[in-house]
């Protein structure tokens, strides 16, 4: 995003907002991931600890989710750029 129109104090404020958002998004991603991988992988409570099958599932679940987020992020950036361009043409 272009912040060149802002003075130093305002740029700083934007920077802080972005950092706060990043932190918030990371916490959100983390808790969602725990929720999803737990729900998908763990449903047997005959033991107190995770089985190797469950651990494998959680590991695959996490890997797959990160790849999902990466791919969606790429496509999102493309689509969002296209949308912005379209909007600026209309103005």
């Amino acid at each position, binding site marked *: *995003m272009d*912040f060149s*129109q*802002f*003075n130093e104090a*305002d740029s700083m*404020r*934007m920077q802080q*907002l*972005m950092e706060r*958002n990043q932190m918030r*998004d990371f916490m*959100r991603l983390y808790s*969602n991931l725990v929720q*999803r*991988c737990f*729900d*998908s*992988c763990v449903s047997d409570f005959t033991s107190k600890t995770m089985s190797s099958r469950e651990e494998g*599932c959680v*590991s*695959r*679940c996490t*890997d*797959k*989710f990160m*790849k*999902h*987020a990466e*791919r*969606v*992020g790429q*496509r*999102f950036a493309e*689509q*969002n750029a*296209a*949308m912005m361009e379209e909007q600026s043409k209309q103005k």
Partner: protein
Amino acid sequence: MFGRGGNAGISAQQSQANLMMAEQEIEMVTDLFNRVSDSCLKKCIPDDYLEADLNKGESVCLDRCVSKFFEVNKKVGAKLQEISGQNQANANRSGGLF
């Protein structure tokens, strides 16, 4: 309104407005991304986790899912604008949607 007199500098009020617009834009884009990501995960990734990689089908599904989400976003936006335009046209009717 203010600070649009063709001068190079922008007034404090204008820059305040720009700042708020930019903040709002960041919030909107972030929120949009989170919603796209959640929806497409639910629709494209089965929760059996037999493999750690995205397979071909899942990858293609995600690409199309993001694209279609944006399309829906655009269509709904256009529709809402249409409706709010109509509402404004018969403005004497009180208690509209917007």
